[in-house]
């Protein structure tokens, strides 16, 4: 609590100060957003993913995600598929790193195999959806460079340029809501040719524990293909009290059974 008050003060002072460059202000905003979400410790959430092609045909997947907050390095997460049934139990364990490639393991329940996989292909689509792997991985401040663009009421617009050359984007335009704990309202993704590729909008926000904002609906629209993917989240469980023990390769197999 004390540290968050200090950080808000630091941010206010910094943003009032003249002579701050757009890069500095952009980074400040990203750090403020990170600070605002600090201390959730762990969460469990179920979600339904609806894939829609340009003719409006849909297919669905359901999955559950467990996340463990870590401050020294990036978060750990465990994703388990519940449907479609032929991939039920397929699970991934990801150790995000602030710097360098993430560590990732895949569990294939039919033959009970755990396989370390490359996290190199971050621009590829996640299970045929309009979300790339990098859109769903833990958003660490260190993974982008920043430039503040404009302020519209409570909305702060910041350009984020991925540090990793393997990213599928040249830039992302992110809209933060400074009055709502710096939650993100919208992200626009520009492809490697700097053309607008996708827009992600967050809606049905809910505040948990008087602090953490989580959107119940993520809607990703691909402007180039006309396809879209909607994520519908059920209520977050912040009381599961997960620990490192719940993010081991043994736990990965347990979750997929």
């Amino acid at each position, binding site marked *: 609590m004390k540290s968050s008050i200090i950080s808000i003060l630091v941010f206010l002072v910094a943003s009032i100060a003249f002579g701050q460059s757009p890069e500095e202000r952009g980074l400040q905003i990203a750090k403020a957003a990170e600070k605002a979400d600090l201390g959730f410790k762990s969460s469990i959430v179920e979600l339904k993913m609806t894939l829609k*092609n340009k003719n409006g045909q849909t297919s669905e997947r359901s999955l559950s995600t467990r996340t463990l907050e870590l401050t020294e390095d990036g978060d750990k997460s465990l994703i388990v598929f519940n449907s479609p*049934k*032929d991939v*039920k139990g397929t699970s991934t364990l990801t150790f995000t790193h602030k710097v360098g490639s993430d560590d990732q393991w895949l569990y294939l329940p039919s033959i009970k195999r755990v396989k370390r996989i490359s996290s*190199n*292909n971050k621009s*590829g689509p996640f299970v045929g959806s309009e979300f790339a792997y990098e859109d769903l991985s833990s958003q660490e401040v260190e993974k982008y460079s920043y430039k503040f663009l404009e302020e519209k009421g409570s909305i702060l617009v910041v350009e984020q340029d991925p540090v990793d050359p393997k990213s599928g984007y040249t830039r992302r335009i992110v809209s933060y809501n400074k009055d709502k704990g710096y939650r993100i309202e919208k992200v626009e993704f520009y492809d490697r040719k700097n053309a607008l590729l996708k827009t992600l909008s967050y809606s049905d926000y809910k505040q948990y524990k008087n602090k953490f904002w989580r959107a119940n609906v993520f809607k990703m629209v691909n402007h180039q293909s006309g396809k879209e993917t909607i994520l519908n989240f059920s209520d977050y469980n912040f009381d599961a009290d997960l620990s490192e023990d719940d993010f081991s390769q043994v736990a990965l197999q347990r979750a997929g059974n």
Partner: protein
Amino acid sequence: METITLELPLIFKITSVKHNNLVLIVLIFFSFALYAQSDEKKKVNHEFELELEAEYRYFFNDAQFPGQETHFPALAIKPEYSIDWNKGKEQINFSGFFRLDRDKERTHWDIRELYYQKAKGSWEINVGLKKVYWGVIESNHLVDIINQTDAVETFDGEEKLGQPMVQFNWITNNIGTFDFFYLPYHRKRTFPGVDGRLRFGSVIDKDDLNYESGAEEWRQDFAVRWKHYFGIFDVALSHFYGNGREPLFLFDNLGNINAFYPTINQTGLEVQVTHDAFLWKLESIYRDAKAQHFLALAAGLEYTFGNIDGNGLDIGVLGEYLYDERDELALSGLQNDVFFGSRIAFNDTQDTSILIGGILDLDASSKIFSLEASRRIGNSWKAEVEARVFSSIDEEELILSNFKEDSFFRLSIAKFF
């Protein structure tokens, strides 16, 4: 050795005796499991799933041995049930299997899994019939030894029989994961019957194979595995002491076969280095029995060109070298061979994927080509196509020469409930 043909009722009797042993083991384990869970009164989750599969295998060359069929229509039923409580920290998982095939020996049922699991802090215990996979290599599975291979089910050896075990896992952050196994009962490998393809000239009845150990299938076996990762390195070391899963075939000058399950010590090593889009892999075993000592090794790499078309198309290329000191006695026939393959994943909504490959013998003309493709249809159906082609198989090959006319094509459709 002559083929011993048993009359049908006797075969059924023997298989049912073997299954009775399994049922006994399951009962013993479950009385333990139920005792252990008696004071838990938390939220309970049940799940039941059923997969029904229709399969058709077609062997397009004339049979090499008398009695072998060409067309093999088949059905499979795979029910699964799981129950968990205590926030998923305690589970009972069941996975059954039944196959009905034209080949009587391929018609079989099995309890793939039926075990109680409890996890607490940094340990986990599993008691019952379970499947465990070890290894990093794609084209051969040397290190993987806990479960018996269901040899009549698939050619690639990835289908396994349920193994009775007590498994204890101890997970540490600093020195890796230790996995201890107590394996009280051995399960024999089933071989194709007279009608079946992919068999030797003489039909091997699994009950004709005996054990080196006087305790036979009740020999109490043990295994341990240590696994850890350091940055881009994943490493595992394992040791198994007990009844070998692979029968040992000894051939004398008259062409007689003496086959049995030896008591073995096997040490295994697995290494994978995951660097950018490269996976570098090494898998090796040293097996020591009274009648045989040998080293086998497989090393290779996998590289994936990700999202080539900006639409999710991934093309992976695989190359592996396979060495086995047993030379021509290697049951897999992979004694000095090279595997090349490509894995194509479309990452579309239907999860379409294709795996093509070829194994080339470096000492002989023998080649095996394979294709495996799968695609989901709608939300609850899945279609699979598989082809294996045995090409220019060297007549001198002790094992593979038996399969030289057994190239086949397989189509299967599965419905998930």
